[in-house]
């Protein structure tokens, strides 16, 4: 019975199947919103209002010819997409939607899971770097170096701002942090500057405009993914969708009070709150132009990191006041 439950947990909900459908839905939502903000229609044909378009794209890519360049590191080149998808899907399991029980920490909800989740979210960046590097294409190589250069910019402010609410809530467990802010909603308001900084950093982590520098098509063609095609590209695209959902889920947990209410209300909360975060990310994507990689570094070290440090100091000070 326990094995069956674990299998259902891993394959159906909240495992791969749910992740697949929800992340493709998130991609549709992002694409539709982006298109409407640009005065375009966006996907319309497949399914109602084009909602099945990302799935259609996925199936189409899966059936396309899959080429591995002869000069590429074949093993690495093949393994990376699956490896990356596995990593971000694991991140999904850590979100406190399905392990909402506060009193009994489980294998996927424990003290310190926020750090694990941040760690898991850093890994895709290295996957992208290795993907670009192992393709040995010039455009991929430039894309790969850009991935790493950007990482040095946004990672520190992201960690600082995501850990700020945890400091105030005095917990390293996602479910407990969320519960803390549900009980003290006005304290969540203190984290608004951190939320804004974290949004910008997540946008950079997801490599979306204005930070779509590693695969800026007008500069370096496909960037890190220049040599990828067929199934591998499909998996990479799915991976990016899942990463979008996980990152949105993380922000919704620590800044927007998590997903209370048990199985079904928790799920509804999850969908509404992640869509809200994705809405903000899409808005940022539609209203900005791509910046240069050196501008990312100066932006994060001149403005984002100092602001994050100030925010952290303010939170520590306030924590001292209220306790």
């Amino acid at each position: 019975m326990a094995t069956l439950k674990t299998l259902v947990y891993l394959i159906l909900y909240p495992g791969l199947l749910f992740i697949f459908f929800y992340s493709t839905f998130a991609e549709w939502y992002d694409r539709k919103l982006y298109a409407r903000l640009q005065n375009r229609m966006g996907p319309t044909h497949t399914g109602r209002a084009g909602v099945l378009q990302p799935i259609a794209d996925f199936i189409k890519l899966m059936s396309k010819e899959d080429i591995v360049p002869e000069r590429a590191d074949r093993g690495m080149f093949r393994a990376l997409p699956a490896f990356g998808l596995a990593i971000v899907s694991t991140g999904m399991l850590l979100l406190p939607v399905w392990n909402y029980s506060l009193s009994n920490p489980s294998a996927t909800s424990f003290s310190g899971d926020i750090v694990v989740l941040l760690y898991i979210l850093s890994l895709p960046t290295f996957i992208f770097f290795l993907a670009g590097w192992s393709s040995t294409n010039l455009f991929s190589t430039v894309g790969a170096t850009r991935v790493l250069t950007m990482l040095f910019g946004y990672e520190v402010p992201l960690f600082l701002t995501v850990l700020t609410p945890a400091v105030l809530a005095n917990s390293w467990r996602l479910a407990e942090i969320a519960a803390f802010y549900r009980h003290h909603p006005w304290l969540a308001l203190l984290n608004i500057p951190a939320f804004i900084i974290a949004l910008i950093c997540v946008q950079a982590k997801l490599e979306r405009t204005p930070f779509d520098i590693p695969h800026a098509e007008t500069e370096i063609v496909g960037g890190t993914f220049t040599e990828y095609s067929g199934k591998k590209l499909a998996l990479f695209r799915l991976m990016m969708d899942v990463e979008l959902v996980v990152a949105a889920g993380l922000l919704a947990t620590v800044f927007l009070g998590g997903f209370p209410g048990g199985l079904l209300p928790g799920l509804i909360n999850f969908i509404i709150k992640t869509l809200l975060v994705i809405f903000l990310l899409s808005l940022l994507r539609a209203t900005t132009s791509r910046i240069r990689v050196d501008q990312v570094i100066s932006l994060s070290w001149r403005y984002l990191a100092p602001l994050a440090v100030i925010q952290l100091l303010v939170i520590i000070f306030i924590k001292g006041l209220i306790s």
Partner: protein
Amino acid sequence: MSFQIPIGPQHPALKEPIGVRVTVDGEIIREADLRLGYNHRGVEKLAEQKTWTQNIYLMERICGICSHSHATCYVQGVEKLMEIEPPKRGLYIRILVSELERVHSHLLWLGVAGHEAGFDSFFMYVWRDREIVMDILETISGNRVHYAINAIGGVRRDLDELQIKHILDSLELLRQRSAYYQKLGTTEPSFVARLAGVGYLSREDAIELCAVGPTLRASGVPMDVRKDDPYAVYDEVPFEVCTADSCDVLGRTVVRIKELLQSYNIIEFLLKNLPAGPIAVRAPRRAKPNEVVSRYEAPRGENIHYIKSNGSDKPERLKVRAPTLANYAATIKMLKNGFIADVPLIFAAIDPCICCAERSVAIVDARTAQERIVTMSSLRELSLKTAKYQTRKREAEWPL
């Protein structure tokens, strides 16, 4: 570590084939090399086999964006050769279309600049509003791209009151939108951060390297054929030459937006002062032996046609110098010491129209760097020879 990156002949940033080899040191460009000749069409040779009238339509097809520019430049030259003077109304309609073309070309460029900078929302909005001017052009000429409005000795279609009213109404909307894009393009922080200081071309360099059009004017040189050597009725039309002093891509954007606003004024003036009368005079079939150079300010800069006649109904020689060709030398200068990220922007900022500029085949020997011009027949022999002896390689060497 420095390595070479090939931009083109096929690259998402380039809509037409051209090769740019950039030698980069990390993200910084140390050396740039331009390779032309991927799209030679033999237009000039073809022109020698067609009559004066047929050539108007051939000239129109040199470029898809400034189609009217080449046709007008050619027609003006032929009119000089034939010593005929088109009627006023015809000239007014001719330059009305050329200003509308400038508007559509500059709006197109603005959108492309947005896209190259990764600002796709800007691109979508500008191109939506470009449809307004495309509609105007369609109401005037019946076509969106190749207007076919020119005839030797005037124009082919007249304007009526209803069309004039439609154009004036649409113009209001375009004015508002352009003012908004001016605000957006010059104040949106991430967009300005991408454009300001990129592709610096000093005033001296711009003059020395013979840059033309908005590229030259953005370096602070007020040079415009419409003002310096007025053709058609530009001496009667009030307008200003727009310049900028920042010498970078932002300056080129500002110049183009300012020119848009000037063009709206010109269009309004032309429509409100449209003289009555015929739109064309009858042209002779032949031109006396003579030669002429015709200049025209295309949206991209100065366009030059050299036409030589020998008394028959066909030109003996027709030479086209498209504005893009004049800007290539300056582009190399602008690319040096920039970032890879700026290549598409700098390149787009001259508004390249590569197919218009492709005129001759030059073969550069990679080992000795010797350049030679070859004839078509020897080129054909060479290709046959190469195809015969070269077996197809399984994996082509990376060409660096």
